[in-house]
Structure formats: C-alpha cells, structure tokens
C-alpha cells in the first residue's frame, strides 16, 4: 500500500494526542493530577493541538476536503465514519475540561465524569483508527488481530512521552508515571515485534490462479498489463518494498521507537536530576522518528490482493 504522508502524520500525531489526553484523564481519575495544575492545562492544550493537527492532515488526504463533514454520516457500517464521530465527541469533554480547568474545585469530584468521558473517547477513537485497517480482508498484513491493539499501545506510549516532558518542565516528574509509560513501551515493543514476525510467517494463500479462476488450467502469469503506464490501482495498492530494506527499517524503527526511549526513561528513574528533562526530550524526539517509520512500514509492507491481477503470484 502506498504510504501517504497525510495519513502517516494523521495517525501518528492524533495517536499521540489521544494518548496524551488519555494520560491526562487517567491522572485526574486516579488523583495524580488535579484540576488547576498548570501542567495539566498544558497537557490538555497540547493534546488538542496534536489531535487537531492530525485531523487536518487527514483532511488533506481527501480528494474533496471541503466535504469532510459528510464523513460523519455512516457510523452504522463504517469504521472511518465512527472514528470521525468519536473524534468530534471527544472534543466535548476535552473542551469543557479546558474551559473549566482553573475554575474547577478539586474537592468537587464531578469533573471526574468529564475525565472518564475523555479517556473513553480518546481510546475509542484510536480503536476505530485501528479497525479501519484491521477490518479489511483484502490486505493480509492489516487484517490481523494485533493491528488495533498496537495502534492503542503506541498511542498511549507516544502520548505518555509527551506527558513526561511536560511534567519535566513543570518539575513535577512522577516516578510512577514514568514506570507506567516504560511498561507500555515494553508492551508496544513486544506486540510490534510479534506482529512483524507474524506477518513474516503468514501464508500467502491468495494466488493469481485463484484471483482469475484459471488456476485449474495451470500456472497463471500476467502477460500484459491493461495499459502501458501504472494506473491508480497500481499506484495506490501496488506499492512494494524490498524485504531487505524493510528489515533494516524495522530495526531502525525499533531502536528509535522503543530501545532509546526505554533507556532514557530508565536513566530518569535511576538518576533523578536536572538531566532528567533532557532525557525525556531525547526519548520523545527519538520515539517521534521511530513511530513515523513504524507507520510508514505499516503501509509499505502491506500487500493488497488486487496485486494478483497486476503480476503478483501470491498475496
């Protein structure tokens, strides 16, 4: 599949944004954050900026961005529509919390309802993003049980790194939070590695013979394409990356998205000093590079069944 930058920016930015909003909401729920705290307000604002930037990037992917609002119509059947609806719904508790942030009484716990709605909305939106891909049987690498969970844990991991940086600047670093983000990074690493080795091993059961229904007559090979130049289907669905390159990119992605941030967080836990904020920033920048590569690979490595009509032997 063609890795479109608009979709990569959308899923990574809004993923981190929803992750950050989830951490904020969970912090309010468990009491590690209280309304009125400046770092909470910054986290909320930055979360909304990330989410909004991502959503605007996704509109750039549309052929008719001016009609984007029509996408809320078919939430009954379409995961894309559900994602849009939930993204908008999630703005409601987030905006209310932001408007009331400095007015809320920490002893009046009614804001916990807003926090709960925000956490559920943010995670459910990322769930829908994952399901857009995971629900397509035409793309083996996406129609996989780990796709949606990986979207969620990566969203929480990258959002958590944003929170740690904000906490660092506000000098309210919490070891418990770092530990939780560390645990999520480890879970993400494990899940992503399992996913990668699983799609490596996957049997490519669809064949050109099955696609044409001519397999019973012998081996089916493409003799001539319908047209001399690549068409939309080939440009969009026929993107192919050499396995050798993919392996190298997976390694770089793992190192930047998981290994270096985990090392940085361990450093913060072990040596709580003024360098902590530096370590947090390094972890965030490194993970940003890594998650961008991870998302690029998610598209580039995914083979669509339609390639069987355009020369692929198996899919």
């Amino acid at each position: 599949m063609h890795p479109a930058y608009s979709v990569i920016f959308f899923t990574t930015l809004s993923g981190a944004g929803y992750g950050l909003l989830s951490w904020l909401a969970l912090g309010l729920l468990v009491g590690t954050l209280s309304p009125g705290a400046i770092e909470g307000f910054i986290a909320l604002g930055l979360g909304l900026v990330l989410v909004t930037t991502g959503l605007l990037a996704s509109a750039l992917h549309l052929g008719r961005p001016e009609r984007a609002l029509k996408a809320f119509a078919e939430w009954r059947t379409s995961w894309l529509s559900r994602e849009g609806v939930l993204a908008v719904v999630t703005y409601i508790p987030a905006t209310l919390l932001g408007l009331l942030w400095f007015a809320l009484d920490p002893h009046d716990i009614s804001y916990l309802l807003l926090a709960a709605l925000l956490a559920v909305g943010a995670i459910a939106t990322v769930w829908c993003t994952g399901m857009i891909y995971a629900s397509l049987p035409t793309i083996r690498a996406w129609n996989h049980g780990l796709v949606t969970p990986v979207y969620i844990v990566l969203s929480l991991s990258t959002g958590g790194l944003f929170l740690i940086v904000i906490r660092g600047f506000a000098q309210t670093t919490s070891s418990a939070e770092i530990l939780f983000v560390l645990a999520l990074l480890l879970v993400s690493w494990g899940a992503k590695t399992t996913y990668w080795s699983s799609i490596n091993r996957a049997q490519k059961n669809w064949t050109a013979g099955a696609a044409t229904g001519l397999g019973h007559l012998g081996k089916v090979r493409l003799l001539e394409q319908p047209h001399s130049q690549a068409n939309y289907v080939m440009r969009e669905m026929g993107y192919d990356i050499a396995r050798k390159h993919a392996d190298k990119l997976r390694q770089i992605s793992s190192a930047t998205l998981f290994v270096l941030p985990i090392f940085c967080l361990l450093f913060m836990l072990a040596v709580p000093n003024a360098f902590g904020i530096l370590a947090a920033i390094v972890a965030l920048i490194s993970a940003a590079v890594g998650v961008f590569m991870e998302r690029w690979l998610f598209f580039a490595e995914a083979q669509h069944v339609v390639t069987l009509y355009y020369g692929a032997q198996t899919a």
Partner: protein
Amino acid sequence: MTALPETTAKKLGLVIDLDTCVGCQACATSCKEWNAGGYSAPLSDIDPYGADPHGTWLNRVHGFEVGEGTNSRSVHFPRSCLHCEEPACVTVCPTGASYKRMEDGIVLVDPDTCIGCKLCSWACPYGAREYDYIDGVMKKCTLCVDRIYNKTLAEDDRVPACVRACPTSARHFGDLSDPESDVSKLVADRQGYQLLPEMGFNPTNRYLPPRDRRDKQMDLAEHLSQGAFAPATGTRPTSPPENETNVTERFFRWADKMLTR
C-alpha cells in the same frame, strides 16, 4: 445509506466469456468513451500526451498466460466492477456516497457526496474502483445505468457500452437473479464462476471459463478420420457433386463461396 439492501429485485450483471474474448480492448475504449460523457463524467486523464500518461478507466483488459509449454495459452481477461451482493466498498464508505440499488443491485458512487477518501478502493479485492485524481472522487463501473434504462436510445443500444461494442459477443448483460434469463442459462451451460468467492463479497458478474483446446476435445486420429485437416475447398460434404449441378446451382455455389470468404 451504506447499509446494504437485504435483497434486490433484480441482480443485473455481466457474464464475460473468457473463451471468445480476443483482448481487442473495444469494451474498454467504448466504456471510456461513453462514461467520459455520462454519469461518471469526467473520466480524467493525466499527462495524456506526455511520458507517463494514465487516467481513470472503469473497465480494463488484462492478458494472462496460463499453463506451461505446449499446454500454455493466452487468456484475455476483462475486469470491471462485479456489482457484488455484499460489497465491502459500500459498507466502508463514511459518507453514504457508495450505495447498492435495491431495484437492480447496481453499485454506484454519488459523485456529489464522495469525499475522495479512497477507502472503498482499499476494500475492493478486484481493483474495480479507480480514483479520479482531477475530479477528486472515486469512479467505478455503473453498468451504464444511463444507457440501460434510456428510452431515447434504440432498444438494441440499451445495454452497457462494453457489451454493445464487443465484436465477438464475449460480453453478456442481464438479470442473474432470474434463472430463465439468457445470462443465467449461459452461466449454467458453461459453468460460469465468480471471482474470489472465498472473499465473501458474492460478486454478481460471472466469468465463463475457456473451453478445452480442440486437441484436447478429441484425439488426433479422430480429427484426421473426420477430415479435420483436409483442404477446405471443394470437399464440403453438403455440396452436391460438380457434375450433378445446373447453371443456377453453380451460380449459387459460386455466390456462397464468394460471400463466405
């Protein structure tokens, strides 16, 4: 509304004969010609006279080689929307621009509602949907919905443009829900099949498999005994012997020979 109708009154579709298709591209070009001015207009082309010309086509003819060595053969393979009974391209659509008609089962895109998110093209295993880079919306085969009910056209022309154009009658159009229709009978006679039925989208269109090669249908000795390789002239068993004919009969035979050249 992208929820699918439970049943459709008709199941209009195409039956494509891979035995008689010669890959002439007449269906693809006449499709482009009709639809560039019809429901799907415009069907944009990009860089049409440049180094990388490409554009939106609703019907494309692929060429496959099937089998090995002396058993191999070319199969021309026209591919367009199969108007599935359970099309995922419709259910994934966030706007309701994609829909399946209750009256005849045709799958259409409303060009005024489509936002060009391209998700439907990802959901289709058959490559039936092509995005129009200039128009910014998705295009697909309409089964020439603007021809088949068009009372301003002569009755013969009220079939999809590809069917009308096919010089070898390899394309047939009709109601596949009616077991008595010509297309249904053709499918029954020739073991017509669906593409990738395992995907679960239940395509309406059917493909008729290539017939066995003639040398497989009977062995060579049989061929020879039937005079299959004898010179074609003057040995037609239906022609009366030369000496039994009068001038009129000889004239008709001559005319027949001329006309059947």
